[in-house]
C-alpha cells in the first residue's frame, strides 16, 4: 500500500525524501518552515491555466452567444426594469487586483443597457447574511465611474432583514419558503454576475442563496445537510447543492434570470510572492532570498501590521472562461473549467492530514481570522476539498497549524463572540445549537441592527460556520492544533493542542500508529483532491 501510495501520480503531488527541503507552512499571519517526515505526501496547487488574453472580448462573446436563451441585447427593451446582482467580497480570495472581473462585466452590461434605452437599473450585492460591504470596498469592486453614478441609491447591499425589501416567491414541496430580494424578484430581467472561485459557488446558489432571507437560508444551511454532503465541493455529491437546485427551479419559474459566470485561474500571488505556491525543492537562490526577507520583515511587525500587510496584497487571478445564459447550462461549463484548474488526481487516503491555516477565508476579508473561522477553514473548507472520498481516512487525525488566538472583530463578527464564549462551552453539538440557540441569535435586536446598519455578519452566521465543519467533525478522529498559543481556544473547539508540528505528528502517531500515511496540503492553495 505504501509503495502504491508513493507512486508519483501528478505533478502537484510531491513526496518528501531524505534530501527534500523544508516546506513552507502558513500559520495565521506567519509563514514557518517545517521539516516533514520522510514519505509525507505534499499536495501543491496545480500550475495556473493561462488567462484569456482579452477578457472584454470573451465577456461580449458570452453575452451575445448565451446558452439556452436569447442574447442579452435581444432581451432588452426601453423602459424595462433591470437589476444586476453581483457576488460579494467573500470571493475571490484574497480580493483580486483591480479592475475586478465584476467591474469589467458591469461596464459592458451597463453600457449595453444604456444603449438599449434601459434606465431603471439597480446594482445589488448578493451578500445574503454576510456582512454588508463597506463604501470603500464597493467602490473598489466596481471602479469609481460606476460607483459615482450608482451609489448609494442604485448600488447597494442586499438586506436580508428588511421586511419591505423582501418577497416570498414560492416554497418547495416540503414547505420550505423561498423569500428573495423584492427588487430582484420584481424586475423584468435579473442579470447575475458571478465569479466562480470554488465548485460550490455559482449556479442556483447565486440567486437562491445570495439574495434570500434568514428563514429561507436556514432550510439548507443546517447540520444534517452538511453531514449529507460528501463533499460540498463536489456538486454531484453535495446535498447542499441538491437542495439549492430545487430552490433554483422555483427561481426559474418566477424570475427571468440571465446568468453570467466566470472561471478564474489560481494565480493567488504576483511575482513577488508566487514562491509560496511552488515546490520548495525547486527554489532558486532568489526565491529563498525573497522568503527569508519576507519572514524577517514579518517577524519585526506586530500581528495587526502583518495582517494589514497580507491583506494589502491583491490576488493576480485571471479569467479563464466566461459563459452566460440559463443558470444550469452556464454553471455546468464553469464548474468543469474550475475542476480543470483545481483537480489533483490523488490515490489513497491518508491517516494524518496536515494543513496550515493561512489568514485567508471568505469571512475575514480585511479582518481577523477568529477561532470559529479557523475551525471552518480546517474542518470545513480544507477538509472538504475532495471529490469521491475524503483525503483523510475515517477516524484519522487532522493537524492544523495556527496560533488559535482568542481575537474577534467586534465590528464584523459580534455574534461570533457570544457564540464562542457562551454556547460552545455548553455544547458543541450542532443539532442542539441549532434547535436551542440559532433563532435567539438570529433575532437578537442588537445583531439585527449591526447587520442592517453596520457591517456585521448576521446574528445566525456563526451557527452556519459551525455547521460548515460538521461533516469534517463527524469524519475526523482527532484534531490537533499545532502552534496554538493558548490552551483554551483548542479546548473550547474540542481539539487537542501541540506546541509545534513535530509534537503534533508524534501525538497523531500515538493514535494511528507509527506507519501512518501522512499528507500535507501545501497552503495557501485552491485544489480539489480528486480521489481514485
Amino acid at each position, binding site marked *: 500500500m505504501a509503495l502504491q501510495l508513493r507512486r508519483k501520480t501528478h505533478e502537484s503531488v510531491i513526496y518528501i525524501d531524505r534530501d527534500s527541503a523544508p516546506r513552507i507552512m502558513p500559520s495565521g499571519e506567519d509563514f514557518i518552515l517545517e521539516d516533514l517526515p520522510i514519505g509525507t505526501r505534499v499536495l501543491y496547487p496545480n500550475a495556473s491555466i493561462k488567462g484569456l488574453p482579452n477578457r472584454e472580448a470573451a465577456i461580449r462573446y458570452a453575452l451575445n452567444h448565451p446558452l439556452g436563451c436569447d442574447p442579452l441585447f435581444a432581451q432588452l427593451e426601453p423602459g424595462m426594469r433591470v437589476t444586476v446582482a453581483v457576488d460579494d467580497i467573500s470571493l475571490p480570495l484574497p480580493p483580486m487586483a483591480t479592475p475586478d472581473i465584476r467591474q469589467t462585466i458591469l461596464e459592458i452590461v451597463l453600457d449595453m443597457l444604456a444603449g438599449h434605452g434601459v434606465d431603471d437599473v439597480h446594482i445589488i450585492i448578493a451578500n445574503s447574511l454576510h456582512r454588508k460591504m463597506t463604501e470603500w470596498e464597493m467602490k473598489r469592486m466596481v471602479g469609481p465611474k460606476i460607483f459615482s453614478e450608482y451609489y448609494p441609491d442604485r448600488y447597494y447591499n442586499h438586506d436580508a432583514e428588511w421586511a419591505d425589501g423582501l418577497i416570498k416567491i414560492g416554497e418547495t414541496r416540503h414547505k420550505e419558503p423561498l423569500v428573495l430580494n423584492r427588487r430582484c424578484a420584481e424586475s423584468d430581467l435579473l442579470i447575475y454576475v458571478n465569479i466562480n472561485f470554488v465548485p460550490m459557488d455559482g449556479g442556483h446558489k447565486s440567486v437562491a442563496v445570495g439574495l434570500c432571507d434568514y428563514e429561507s437560508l436556514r432550510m439548507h444551511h443546517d447540520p444534517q445537510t452538511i453531514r449529507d454532503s460528501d463533499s460540498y465541493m463536489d456538486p454531484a455529491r453535495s446535498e447542499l447543492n441538491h437542495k439549492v437546485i430545487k430552490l433554483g427551479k422555483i427561481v426559474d419559474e418566477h424570475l427571468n434570470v440571465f446568468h453570467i459566470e466566470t472561471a478564474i485561474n489560481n494565480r493567488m500571488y504576483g511575482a513577488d510572492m508566487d514562491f509560496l505556491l511552488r515546490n520548495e525543492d525547486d527554489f532558486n537562490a532568489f526565491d529563498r532570498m525573497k522568503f527569508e526577507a519576507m519572514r524577517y520583515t514579518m517577524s519585526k511587525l506586530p500581528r495587526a501590521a502583518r495582517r494589514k500587510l497580507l491583506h494589502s496584497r491583491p490576488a493576480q487571478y485571471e479569467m479563464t472562461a466566461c459563459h452566460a445564459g440559463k443558470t444550469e447550462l452556464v454553471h455546468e461549463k464553469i464548474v468543469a473549467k474550475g475542476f480543470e484548474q483545481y483537480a489533483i488526481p490523488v490515490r489513497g487516503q491518508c491517516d494524518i492530514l496536515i494543513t496550515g491555516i493561512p489568514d485567508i477565508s471568505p469571512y475575514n476579508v480585511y479582518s481577523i481570522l477568529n477561532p470559529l473561522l479557523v475551525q471552518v477553514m480546517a474542518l470545513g473548507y480544507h477538509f472538504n476539498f475532495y471529490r469521491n472520498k475524503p483525503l483523510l481516512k475515517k477516524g484519522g487525525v487532522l493537524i492544523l497549524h495556527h496560533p488559535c488566538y482568542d481575537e474577534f472583530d*467586534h465590528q464584523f463578527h459580534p455574534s461570533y463572540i457570544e457564540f464562542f464564549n457562551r454556547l460552545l462551552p455548553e455544547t458543541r453539538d450542532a443539532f442542539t445549537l441549532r434547535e436551542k440557540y440559532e433563532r435567539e441569535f438570529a433575532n437578537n*435586536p442588537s445583531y439585527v441592527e*449591526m447587520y*442592517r446598519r453596520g457591517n456585521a455578519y448576521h446574528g445566525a452566521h456563526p451557527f452556519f460556520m459551525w455547521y460548515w465543519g460538521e461533516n469534517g467533525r463527524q469524519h475526523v478522529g482527532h484534531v490537533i492544533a499545532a502552534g496554538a498559543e493558548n490552551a483554551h481556544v483548542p479546548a473550547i473547539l474540542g481539539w487537542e493542542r501541540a506546541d509545534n508540528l513535530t509534537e503534533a505528528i508524534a501525538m497523531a502517531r500515538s493514535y494511528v500508529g507509527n506507519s501512518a500515511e501522512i499528507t500535507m496540503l501545501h497552503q495557501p492553495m485552491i485544489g480539489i483532491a480528486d480521489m481514485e
Partner: protein
Amino acid sequence: MAGAAFYDLEGTLVSTNLVHTLSFYARRQQGLVASFKKSAATVLSLPVFAVTDQYSRKVFNDLYFQRYKGQSEDRLRYFANELFEEVIKPAVFPGTYELIDKSRKLGLRQVVITGALDLSVKPLMEHLGITEYVTNRLEFVNGMATGRLLPPVMAAATKASWIRTYTERENISLSDSYAYTDSMSDLPMLSIVGHPAVINPDMRLRQTALHHDWPILNLK
C-alpha cells in the same frame, strides 16, 4: 420567564440630550430679555456641564436641574408638545423604530429609563408606543420649580437598582433582558442584564464595550 429591553433615552434612542431641552425652554421665557438672558446663561453653562458630566452624573444633575429653578410647571407642560414636535421627534434615530419593533416581536417588555424630565419624555413615549418608562421629576412648590429633583434620581447606579426592583416585581429574567445606552454612567445598568449593548458610544464606553465584547450599535 419573560425578558425586557431597557433603554436609556437621550443619545441612545434620540440624538438630543438634556441640554437641548434646557435650551428649548430657555428660548421660550416670558419676554425677549428673559429669553435672551436664560439662553445666554445656558450657553455659558455648557463647558461646566461637559466637565461635570465626565466627572460625576450626580454632580451634573445637581447643577443642571438648578437651571430650571423658578420656572412655572404650567409653562413647562404647555411647551412639552412643541418641544417634542420641534426638537425631539426629528432627533429620533432611524434605527430606533426598528430596534424597538424587533425587540417587541421577541416578546420583550419595552422599558425606558432616563434622566430626562417626565414632562418632556411623555409625548415621545406615546410616539414610540412605550407605556413603561421611568424619568426624573422636578420638585415644584406652589407651581414653581425649585431646581431640585424628587427621589429617586434616575442616574448611574440608581437605574440598575430600579431595574432590579422592577424585574423582581414583574417576574422578569435579568439574564434574558437587554439594556441599551450611550453613556458610561449607565455601566451598572449594562452590567446586570444578560444582553448588554451600547449605542453610539463615546470613547470611554466604546473601550469598555470592546473589553467586555458587548455589541456596539449605530442607529444613525
